[in-house]
Structure formats: C-alpha cells, structure tokens
C-alpha cells in the first residue's frame, strides 16, 4: 500500500468526477434543491391542513337529550363544538362524517344525575379522522367538566365542602428547552435524511468508478500501471466517500438554510397549541450527527464499491444497487417508529443505531456510552466493508467477469 499512489488515484478520480456533469448534479443540485422544496412544501401543506382542521367547528350530535336540557345546555356552552339535535341514524352520520361525533345520553339523564345514580354516557367517533378525534376530545372535556360541576353541586347540597370532589388540581409546566421539543419532532427526521443522502450521493460515483470504468474499457489499462490493486480500490473508495460526505454536508446546510427561512411558518405550527414552545435547531447537534454519520458513509462507500465492481456494465450495477436503498431506508424508518429506543441491542444494528443516536443528539441528549459504542461498531462494519471491497478488487473472477 502506498499513500502516494492512493493519492494519485484519488486525485484522478476527483478531477474526472468533477468534469462529469452527472456526478456533480447528484452530489450538489439534488440536496440543494430537494430540501428547500421539501421543507417549504411540507410546511405549507401541514400549515394549511392544520388551520383548516382547526378552523372548522365540528358538529356534535346529542342523542337522547330531550329530557335532559341541563347537560345539553352545558355542552352548548363550549364554543369549540356545535351541538345538533339527535336523530336515529347517528352512527351512520358519524361514519359519513355529516357529524364528527355523537354523544349518547341515557334516558332521563338529568333526573338520574341529580340523585347521584351511576350512569354511562357514550361517545361515538371515527378513529383515524383528525376532525372526529378533535370533536371527541372537546366533547370529552366538556362532559368531564360538567361531571365535576355536577358532583360539586351534589356534595354541597349534602353539606360537604365542594373541594372534596377535586382534592387537588394538576398544573402542567413545560421545562424542556425549546430545541429539545423541536428535536423530538424534527430530530428523528434530520439524521434520517442525512443517512439516505449520504447513500444516494455515493451511489453514482461508486457505479461510475467500477462498472462504468469496465464499460468504457479503462479498467484494464489502469490495471497495467504500477499502482497496486489495493491502492487503486482505496483511491476510488476515498473518492466515493468524498461524494457521500459532500452530499450529506450540502444537504445539511441546505436543510438548515431552508428551515431558517421557513422558521416563522413552522414556529406558528408548533407553538399554536403550546405557546411556550419555540422552534429551534441545535447546531452542535447537527455537527454531532454529521460525525456519527461519518463511519456510516464509509460503510456505504465501501459496500457500494464492492457490489458495483461485480457488475459488468453501468446498467447491471444499477440493478444491484437499487434494492440497497430499500435495505438502508428500512432500519432508518424503524428508528422513527414510537417505542424503538436506544439500548445495547439496537446500538449494534447499523443505520438503525445511527438514526436513533441522531435523534437523541438533535434533542440535546448526549448518551456518551452509546455514542462510543455506536461509533465503534459502525467503524468495525465500515472496516469489514473496506476489506470486502479490497478483496473483490483482487479477484480476477470479479474484475474480468465473463
């Protein structure tokens, strides 16, 4: 192995790639355009949908309230729902979304309630429909409030202090720093995108430098030069890694810029329900994510090279590499699922571990033990992949596959 020769090969591949429009486009234009478009588009869509859902006052049907005007009156006081009189086909109406929820009162509710008899109030709603779930929430809150008022009235009539019904209150205060809240929502997404892009950025050069070179017929000639095959593959590997990291770095930059530009919009979205929360991203967190993605990029670059080298043509290489995107996306998506958490087992699964630790880093947490474990395990996987690529390059049956 000679560092000088690796350097010569690397320089050659770098110069060659920079002259190739396709590489430059996949490396720069895609991340630079994708993120602003994605952020702005998704932000706008989300904002529009949310405001529309919130702007509409859901219709809630009260069934069987004819003999219980007091409870109906209490429900009508809530401005967030519009109470409509009941009809027999309430269940169908909830399904058809003509009303968003239906409150089913038992016969003689008011009368029974005054005597403190135990009864059940049903609420029909449509799970999965945001508007119906909002209506359910509001109806439930109204009913609970009415329950407390009723209880208070009942106990005070019997000469017992009203406080007894509600011996204590619960008051919520958010102490999480703003970036932490933003981190939990967006934190999972940022490492996910960086990982996917560090893969796609490496894909084109990996194919071009191996199968592409075979196809153009320049592979044999470089093999006749006094550069050892190991130096050759390492030079190529560093080029693919450069492309991968450049794509990741550019995408992070572009993401940061577009988030900054769309900040107000997103801020409004996040803080509407919770005015104490503000949208922010921790720059140290982003740098830490990049550092954690580094061994993963090495793993991608080496794996892509080893696989693409097996192909005889660019097209064949594409066939082999496209499924790889799915294989990478799966663990990255799994990390976004609720309940998938960082532990010693998940920390050893490549990609999944990096996405999980990225989520933590973006949320401002620094689980050092896991960070070390994940970095080291990723380095081990990456070295194995490099070893595989070098072995492939030294095999005649792979280089000159008939």
């Amino acid at each position, binding site marked *: 192995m000679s560092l*000088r*020769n690796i350097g*010569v090969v690397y*320089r*050659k591949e770098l*110069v*060659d790639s920079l*002259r*190739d429009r396709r590489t430059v486009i996949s490396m720069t234009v895609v991340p630079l355009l994708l993120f602003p478009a994605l952020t702005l588009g998704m932000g706008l869509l989300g904002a529009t949908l949310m405001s529309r859902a919130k702007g509409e006052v859901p219709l809630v049907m009260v069934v069987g309230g004819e003999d219980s005007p007091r409870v109906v009156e209490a429900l009508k006081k809530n401005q967030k729902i519009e109470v409509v009189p009941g009809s027999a086909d309430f269940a169908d109406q909830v399904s058809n979304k003509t009303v968003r929820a239906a409150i089913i009162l038992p016969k003689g509710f008011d009368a029974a309630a005054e005597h403190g008899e135990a009864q059940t109030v049903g609420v029909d709603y449509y799970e999965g429909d945001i508007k119906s779930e909002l209506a359910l929430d509001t109806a439930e809150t109204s009913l609970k409030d009415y329950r407390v008022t009723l209880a208070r009235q009942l106990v005070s009539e019997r000469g017992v202090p009203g406080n007894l019904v509600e011996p204590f209150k619960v008051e919520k205060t958010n102490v999480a720093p703003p970036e932490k809240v933003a981190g939990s929502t967006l934190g999972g997404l940022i490492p996910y995108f960086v990982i996917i892009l560090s893969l796609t950025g490496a894909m084109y050069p990996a194919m071009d430098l191996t199968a592409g070179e075979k196809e*153009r*017929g*320049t592979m*044999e*000639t*470089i*093999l*006749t*030069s*006094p*550069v*050892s095959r190991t130096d050759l593959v390492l030079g190529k590997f560093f080029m693919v890694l450069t492309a991968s990291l450049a794509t990741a770095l550019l995408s992070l930059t572009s993401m940061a810029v577009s988030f900054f530009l769309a900040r107000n919009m997103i801020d409004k979205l996040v803080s509407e329900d919770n005015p104490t929360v503000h949208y922010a991203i921790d720059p140290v967190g982003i740098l830490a994510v990049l550092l954690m993605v580094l061994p993963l990029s090495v793993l991608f670059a080496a794996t892509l090279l080893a696989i693409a080298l097996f192909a005889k043509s660019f097209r064949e290489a594409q066939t082999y590499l496209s499924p790889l995107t799915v294989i990478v996306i799966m663990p990255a998506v799994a990390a976004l699922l609720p309940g998938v958490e960082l532990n010693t087992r998940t920390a050893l699964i490549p990609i999944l571990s990096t996405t999980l630790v990225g989520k933590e880093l973006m949320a401002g947490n620094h689980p050092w033990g896991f960070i070390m474990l994940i970095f080291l395990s990723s380095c081990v996987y990456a070295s194995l992949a490099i070893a595989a690529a070098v072995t492939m390059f030294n095999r*005649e049956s792979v280089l*000159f596959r*008939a």
Partner: protein
Amino acid sequence: MAEPLIQVRELSKHFRTYHRREGIWGGLQNLFVRDYKTIAAVDRVSFTIDRGEMVGYIGPNGAGKSTSIKMLTGILVPTSGEAVVNGFVPYRQRRRYVKTIGVVFGQRTQLWWDIAVIESFKLLRRIYDVSQSDFDARMELFNSILGIKDYLNTPVRKLSLGERMRCDLAAALLHNPPLLFLDEPTIGLDVVAKHHIREFLREINREFHTTVLLTTHGMDDIEELCRRILIIDHGKVLFDGELRELKQRLLRTKQIKFVVKDRADGEGLSRFAVDGVELQPVDELTYRFRFDRTKVSAADLIRQILASVEVRDLLIEDEPIEEVIKRIYAGEATLEVPA
C-alpha cells in the same frame, strides 16, 4: 547470444464458463442449473522474443491473443505454465515489472475520459515516477513524431480515434519502456491514421530498439511492421516464423476480383477457369478468380482477360488470414516452434 526478452513456456489460461440455453425456458433453466465447462483461452503456448524484435501476434477474434497479452502484462494470472519478461515474472512482480513495459489496448484507452490529455500524462508521470526533465524531453519527441501538441488540452472523449491512439501511444511510452505491447493498435483507424501509427512504431523500434509485440487480426499491419509472426487460434500457436516464409509456404492462393460491364462479359470469364484457376461469382457483375500463385502467373491471367473481356475494375487480394489458418489445420503447414 543475449537472453531473450520474453520467454513463454507452456503458458495456459483456463476460464470457467457455462453453456447458455436459448429461449425463455432456457433462460429460466440457466438460473438454476448450469453446465459449467472449462475453456482453454490460451493452451500451452511457448515462444521467445529477442530484444529489438517487432513480432506480430495474429489470429482471428477469440483466438486467445488478448488473454495472452493480459497474462504477459500481469493483469491475469496464468492457470499453468510460466512467463519471464524483462527478467520479471509479470503476475508475481507486477508493480516493478510494469514500469518496464508499455501497453496499448486498441479499443480501450488509458487516458481518462473526461479530463484533458495533458492531465492524464501528468498523472501517469507521477504513477511511473518519471522525472520532470525526462518527461519534458519525451513530450518534445512525441510531439515531433506524432504531432500531439494541438490536442493536449482537449478532453479525451472529444478526440477522434486516430488522435486518441496517438496520445495513447505517447502515454504508454512516457516512461521509456524497452518493451511495448499493442493490442489491435490500428483497429477502426482510417488509412492515414494507420500510416502515422505504423511510421511511429517503426521509428521507435529503430531509434530506441524498443521491442514490440502487437496483436492484430488483419494482415496489413503485419506486412508493414513485422518480419516475424506468431499465428494463434483456439489458444494454440499454429505458426511461429518469418512472414516471408509464411507467404511462400502458405499464402499460395491469390485472389483477383473483376467487375465486368455486363452479364455477357461475366459469362466470357468462365473460359479462364481452367488449370487450377477457380471462378466464384460474387454478385451479378463481380467475379473472383482464385489460383495457386506458384503455378499461375497473376500478370499473365490479367493480361489474357483484359484482352478479351471488357473489365471495369479489378482488385488483387491475398487470401484472408482465416483461410490460412484453416489450411494450417488441414495439415498443409506444420508448426514451427524453435526448440
């Protein structure tokens, strides 16, 4: 006598391949069951080449020429046998060895596609450890013979085939190797470009005593450049000797193609197809005579025909190399491998 520059003994290269069945059903079968077979691309080839020789390594497509060159340049490891070139075993001491050889593959290039020619040269200079002064001197020389100065700053993909081949030759000779391997150097080139390349090869052979082993499947390169040829087919050396001798012994058949004015003239030609002269119609107005040139004089035949038939055009051809190889197989020639 000095040690030969290239010594090849019983060199073989086997490839494992499988029989591909035809059709959709065959394609499906191929996925699961494959009849593997071993093919000897090069089969126990032996020869020696001395310093300063220019040798043609010829044979039809798929004969094993390129595989031989790849073994001699250290890219492929032979299945069996041995080769010593410039005192090195190519596939074992590859990195030191390749600094003493130059290689040009006619259908490939060692210049990088998207970058300017001069940048490839500079990279090769670093790879081969050529000093700046040697590099400048050689660039000067190549420019004077090959005239490559005008397109040194052009990316390779924009060069014509002829221009690229000149640059490839210059690239292969940057480190002044005593031995040059050329695989189909004139393939696809026009007459003028071919001429330039041949001139250059003669020049470096004369000036620097560069030994040249070139493969080709046409005879014209060989006739202009090589005194000695090796004929290879199906991985075996069929002939090793002087070109002159091959011509005397094997290229006995001459062919003359006549284009006549009308069909009646064509019928008139059939009178001359006697005494070992064969006549084959090519198309309605074109006819080919084949005859043994040791028995029939081409000049006499042409004179007689021109005297009686109205001929529009005529072309004298040698027998294609494939025909020669067929006849070697038929036992009309013996293998001549020096002991």
